[in-house]
């Protein structure tokens, strides 16, 4: 069993009391598990003769003469019970969803016993068929996740439930359909994410769920005041957790201007159905207003910053930020530049944003230089700030403009290199060496060298190459485990 200390675990299992208790639990589980399969008609009910015949195959038990007992409501109660104990089995969640979606039995047909003429229901009134209530599903999954915060199936059911609830029009408690709205509940889901992340900031299930909720908030936006049931229903069918938001691409093959990047992909399959213009089409996913999108972007941008400032080792927050970065750039370009955009202006926005991000990581890398998390983001930002791709796509641009852009990036690189050189020197004095600093410096030097091939650089390439090589030599000494990689990097300068 994952993560269990061996001596302790074996001792526990050899303890007859504990062993008996666990055996009892296993028997209970197996009985309930079988019961559910029988109710679902996946297993034949036990035959009358007590034999040890092997279970039937997975076919439905048509032709069985035993009565399949139990109402849907009853079955659901059993499902609840087992899921809280073990939320991992996806087939149990499937069963639950089937029960919630099934056609309601018309209770009135069976109620001839129940009305004694005084409109008093007798004791044997039939239980109502279960109806989908978002609160129930949120409570159940929360209970499961509190015990096991990493269960794929429980997180998935939560997402599925939210979508289903939206498709019903975000009904309020006790209702079966609604009139839109729903943002309040979704915002409180973000609160749940914050709680879970406070317990384990690296729980990727929770981060993924958070991104799903943001997509859901975008889907229900504007659905309160100007409510259009059909549109909301269609949007929910297309709600798959993806963000079809416009971002500025750094991809050499794309248009230099804004382009659609599916930065956050679907987490549920979109239910196939009527396609509504503007929802799935790139790049004009126009049903979400810019205002709303920027609101959500700011929310997430600030959330990740908060997390990073609290703990520099938060790789998950840095990762999320790396996805938000192109969106944030796009927002700034739209806000600050409008439609009149020169290449130099656009690049300046990129540079400014990069420098802000570099300030954010600098605290981390200089405070805890051995923690690799911030260094990965540092590398990403330095590379992302590079104008090389943009320049290659715009060869016909004004030479002065191009030169100014290159100089600006060079300045950024120098500004990064110097403090890192100092850091390396300090760490070397202490005797520990600075692996990540050396890797970063090497990367920066490589970028400077690459740039000089674009401009008539007066950079002394030879000296830079020597310094880069020296970095690799030092790395081979202080990190021999990865020596082969450093050797292979040397060869690039042959």
């Amino acid at each position, binding site marked *: 069993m994952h993560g269990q200390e061996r001596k302790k675990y074996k001792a526990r299992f050899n303890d007859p009391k504990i062993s008996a208790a666990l055996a009892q639990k296993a*028997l209970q589980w197996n009985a309930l598990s079988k019961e559910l399969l029988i109710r679902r008609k996946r297993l034949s009910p036990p035959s009358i003769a007590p034999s040890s015949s092997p279970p039937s195959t997975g076919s439905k038990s048509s032709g069985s003469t035993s009565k399949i007992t139990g109402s849907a409501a009853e079955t659901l109660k059993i499902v609840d019970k087992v899921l809280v104990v073990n939320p991992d089995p996806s087939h149990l969640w499937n069963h639950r969803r089937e029960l919630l979606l099934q056609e309601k039995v018309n209770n009135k047909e069976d109620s001839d016993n129940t009305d004694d003429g005084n409109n008093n229901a007798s004791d044997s009134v039939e239980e109502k068929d279960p109806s989908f209530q978002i609160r129930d599903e949120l409570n159940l999954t929360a209970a499961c996740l509190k015990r096991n915060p990493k269960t794929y199936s429980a997180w*998935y059911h939560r997402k599925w439930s939210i979508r289903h609830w939206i498709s019903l029009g975000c009904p309020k408690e006790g209702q079966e359909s609604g009139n839109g709205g729903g943002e309040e509940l979704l915002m409180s889901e973000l609160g749940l994410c914050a709680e879970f992340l406070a317990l384990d900031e690296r729980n*990727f299930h929770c981060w993924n769920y958070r991104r799903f909720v943001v997509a859901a908030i975008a889907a229900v936006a504007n659905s309160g005041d100007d409510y259009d049931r059909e549109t909301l229903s269609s949007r929910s069918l297309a709600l798959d957790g993806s963000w079809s938001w416009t971002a500025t691409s750094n991809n050499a093959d794309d248009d230099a201007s804004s382009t659609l990047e599916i930065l956050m992909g679907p987490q549920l399959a979109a239910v196939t159905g009527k396609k509504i213009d503007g929802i799935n089409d790139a790049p004009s996913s126009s049903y979400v207003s810019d205002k709303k999108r920027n609101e959500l972007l700011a929310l997430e941008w600030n959330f990740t910053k908060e997390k990073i400032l609290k703990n520099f080792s938060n790789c998950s927050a840095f990762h999320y930020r790396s996805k938000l970065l192109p969106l944030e750039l796009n927002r700034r370009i739209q806000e600050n530049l409008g439609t009149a955009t020169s290449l130099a202006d656009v690049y300046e926005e990129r540079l400014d944003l990069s420098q802000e991000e570099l300030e954010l990581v600098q605290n981390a890398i200089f405070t805890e230089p051995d923690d690799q998390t911030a260094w990965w983001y540092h590398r990403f930002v330095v590379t992302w700030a590079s104008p090389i791709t943009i320049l290659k796509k715009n060869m016909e641009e004004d030479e002065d403009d191009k030169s100014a852009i290159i100089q600006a990036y060079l300045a950024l690189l120098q500004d990064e290199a110097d403090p890192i050189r100092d850091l390396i020197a300090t760490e070397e004095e202490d005797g520990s060496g600075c692996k990540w600093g050396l890797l970063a410096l090497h990367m920066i030097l490589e970028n400077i060298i690459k740039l000089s091939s674009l401009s008539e650089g007066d950079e002394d390439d030879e000296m830079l190459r020597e310094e880069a090589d020296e970095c690799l030599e030092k790395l081979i000494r202080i990190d021999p485990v990865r020596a082969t990689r450093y050797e292979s990097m040397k060869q*690039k300068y042959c």
Partner: protein
Amino acid sequence: MSTATEKEDNDTLSNLPPFYDNLHKTYITSLASKIDKPTSYEGAVMEHLRMSGVYWSITALSLIRSPQEVDELMGLTTTPTTSQDDKRPSIVDWVFACYDKDSGGFGGNIGHDGHLLYTLSALQILAIANKLDDERLNVEKVSQFIAQLQQPDGSFAGDGWGEIDTRFSYCALSALAILQKLPSPEETDGIVDVKKAAEYVASCKNFDGGFGCVPGAESHAGQIFCCVGALSIAQSLHLLDADLLSWWLAERQCDSGGLNGRPEKQADVCYSWWILSALSILGKVPWISTDKLGGFILQCQDEEDGGIADRPGNMPDVFHTFFGIAGLSLIGYLNRVRIDGEEDEEERRVYRKIDPVYALPTDVVERLGLSGQIMSRDVGKSKEEDEINERLKMYCVLKDKDEKKGLS
């Protein structure tokens, strides 16, 4: 490699625990009777993924025993010799009992819903048992089950309920390959669009070169194996940034020699497989220390009862036993390491090898003629590399970008 270095290696190896071959064999073969008891707590908790559990145990045993021995010991195609209850079905019979006619896929256990995860495990078991031509296997239906799960963007859902995850992309492509139903990437009219599947996987690429469950999800070594494996099967390794990813994977090696799954996480034996197989495909195994990794895995063994745990001192389970043995196999350790109880060098058991793309013994992959792609093939740099190259010899090679440019 000089003899001096070899001697060094042997000295280092002799400081480590031996490979408890016989104990692991006993651990694996006694699992079934333990877990299938209705009083088994572990059995109850793992009931829903039994199909995968069986795949892990069969494949682990297959690496340390011959096909005939595996069949006899585990009752792969006939009733097991270790079973007291001679009504216990063979594993192959049990696999077919888990077939879910409604969906067309295999469930994790009898009566459970068909799902891509367990469909792959079932097919892997049948492949090892050489029973893919069993008349009970409806190749068309199973292929349709898989094909219907592909989404317009190339991704795959796990089942009809719609969960999307790159693990399922790997399961789908691998399963179809085993069924001999995988179209080539160029085919526009095949039952699945392999090119789109590959492009979708590539869209999950992150700032560190790694991959997550969906586009936007953070890099994780397990997902990375699935993505690299999927791209290999789809002959589309050119879509990833091999250097950056290999570097990120190499940085998973901790001081203990073990590998973690993400930065700042603890080393865990299962990453010996996820990361090592990915590095094998990328041609970058030398970027980690296989010696230190091998040492870590050996230390995760349970020297009393056999089996391998996630880290030293912890309780073993079949999942980590499989990945630990697979990891040792992949770095060629099984043929070099001290075997517990072995006296005679000449009687040394010859171990089977595991294939890093399909996670099946290489002889099975060869028998089925499965294809894949690897990054490059460096010859003669080290024993481990030769070892890995040997088992990847059937795969197409994507030339390193540098090689193409003639800069190497």
